[in-house]
C-alpha cells in the first residue's frame, strides 16, 4: 500500500489509503472501505472484494490508523460521518462498504449524501452494536494516559457507549431510500443484527444479500 492521501476535516488530518487501483482500465466509480471500531484500513484487498472492477480506497477514521488522534476524545458517529464525507468530497460518487462501526457510519453517510453514495453495504465487524438502542446508566469514563494509540482509547470507550435507537437509524435509511436515484441503495450483508440494524433491514427498499451480489449490483450502477 502506498502512502495515504491526507484529507482535512476541521483540525484533523485523515488518511485515505489506496487499497487497490482500478483493474484492467476499469473506469467505474470507486469503492470506499470504512473499517470497524479499533481497526484501520487493511493493507491489502480483503477477501471478497476481488471482483470489484474500480479502485478501492479505505479511510482511517479519526483516532485510528494514520489519522489524527484528537486530544480529550469527544467521538460521535455523526462526526465520523463527516470524516467519511471528507473522503467523498475527494473521491466523488462512490460505493461505501462499512464493517461494524463503519457499517453504521456508512448508513448515516448515505442518508446525508444520498446523491453521492452509490450504494451502502453494511457488514459485520467491531463496533456494530454501539451502546445499544438506549443509553445505559451514565458514567464519566477515564482512560489510561499512558496507553499507546492508535486506536485512541477514547474512541474505543465512547463508540461502544453511543446509543443507536432503531427509529433514528431508520430515519437515515428512509432518507436514502426516498432520496437516492438508485433502486436498492442499501444492502445489509451482516449476520449480526443489533436492534438498529434489524430495523434497517426490515425497511422497504433495503436489500438483504451477500457481499458478492451487492458489489456486482453496485458496480453496474453509474
Amino acid at each position: 500500500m502506498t502512502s495515504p492521501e491526507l484529507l482535512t476535516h476541521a483540525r484533523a488530518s485523515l488518511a485515505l489509503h489506496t487499497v487497490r487501483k482500478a483493474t484492467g482500465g476499469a473506469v467505474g466509480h470507486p469503492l470506499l472501505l470504512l473499517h470497524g471500531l479499533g481497526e484501520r484500513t487493511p493493507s491489502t484487498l480483503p477477501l471478497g472484494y476481488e471482483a470489484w472492477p474500480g479502485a478501492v480506497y479505505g479511510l482511517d477514521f479519526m483516532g485510528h490508523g494514520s489519522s489524527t488522534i484528537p486530544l480529550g476524545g469527544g467521538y460521535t458517529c455523526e462526526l465520523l460521518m463527516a470524516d467519511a464525507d471528507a473522503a467523498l468530497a475527494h473521491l466523488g460518487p462512490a460505493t461505501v462498504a462499512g464493517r461494524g462501526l463503519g457499517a453504521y457510519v456508512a448508513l448515516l453517510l448515505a442518508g446525508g449524501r444520498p446523491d453521492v453514495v452509490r450504494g451502502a453495504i453494511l457488514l459485520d465487524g467491531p463496533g456494530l452494536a454501539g451502546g445499544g438502542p438506549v443509553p445505559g446508566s451514565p458514567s464519566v469514563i477515564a482512560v489510561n494516559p499512558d496507553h499507546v494509540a492508535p486506536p485512541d482509547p477514547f474512541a474505543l470507550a465512547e463508540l461502544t457507549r453511543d446509543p443507536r435507537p432503531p427509529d433514528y437509524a431508520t430515519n437515515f435509511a428512509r432518507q436514502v431510500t426516498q432520496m437516492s436515484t438508485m433502486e436498492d441503495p442499501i444492502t445489509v450483508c451482516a449476520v449480526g443484527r443489533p436492534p438498529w440494524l434489524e430495523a434497517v433491514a426490515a425497511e422497504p427498499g433495503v436489500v438483504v444479500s451477500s457481499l458478492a451480489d451487492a458489489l456486482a449490483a453496485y458496480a453496474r450502477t453509474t
Partner: protein
Amino acid sequence: MTELVEEERVSFPGATPPHRTRTVSSDGLGIAVHEWGDEGAPPVMVAHGGFDFARTFDVFAPLIAAGGWRVVAWDHRGHGDSEHAHLSSWDADVRDAMAVFDATAPGPLAVIGHSKGGALLLQLAESSPHRISKLVNIDGMPSPRPHPDVADHQRTRLMASELSGWLDSRRTAAAAQRKPGTLDELAQRRARMNPRLSHEWLRYLVSVGARRDADGWRWKIDPTMRMGGFGPWRNSWSLERLSGLAMPMIGLLGLIPEQMGWGTEPDELRPYLPAGGQLVAFEDTGHFVHIERSTEVAELVLDFLGSPR
C-alpha cells in the same frame, strides 16, 4: 480613538472580572477556569450554557461570592478561553467538568448550571452523585414534550437539508472564521440569540468574550461550532433519571419562550422532580433568568445553598 481605549472603557454596572484564572488539563485539553471570591471559601461550581462562556457570569458570580462562596466557573471546550478541540460531544463536556471539579476540591460540591450547563450538571449528578452536594439548575431542565411532529415527506426534506447543511459546514470547517465587526455590531448580532438582554450588557459581553483582531472583533468561540445539530439524544432519557437524584435540587424556569430556551413548563416537569426537589418559575422572564433578575436569583440561590461554612 484606538480600539484599546474602546476596550478599556467597556464596563457594565455590577460586572466584575474574575479574581483569579487558571487552566485545567482535561486529558491534555486546556480548560479555562475563572474564579470569584475568597480562595479559601467553599467552592460552588458554575456551568454556562451553549454558545456562552464563563464570563457571562461577571454580574451573577460576584453576588454569589459576596455570600461567602468561592465561585468556580469554566469555559466549555471550544468556548471562551478554553482550547478549541478536534471533537466536541456531550460526554466530553461532562468529562471536562469533572476535570475542573477534580482540580478544585475532592468530595461533594455545590453546583449551579444554566441551560446546557444545567443539563450537563444533571448528568454529572446522575453519574457521580458523590461529587455533588446541592444542585441549582437555571432554565436547563429537560422538557417532557417531544419535538413537534411533522408529516413524513416534510420530515425527509427537513432532514435532508439539515444533514447536507451540517456536512457542508464540516467540509469548510478548516478555514472557518467568525465574522469580524465592531463591538456594537457583534452586540447586535448576539441580540438575535439574546433578544431580551440590553445592548449595553451584550456590548460588555463582546469586550470579554471576543478578541480584537486587526480587522475587528471576533467571538472567541470555536468557529467550527454550529448552532443546532442532530443526534440520537432524546429528552426522555434524562427526564426519566431526574426523579432518582438524592441531593437537594432547585430548578429555576423563565416562562417567556425564546430561541435559546427549552420551553420547559413547570406543570409538565413537576411529576418528574425528585423527592424534595423545588421548582421556581419566573413570570415575565426569559431564558437568561440569572442575568435578567440577577439580584433576585442570587438571593434565592444563596438561601438554597445555605451557610457556606
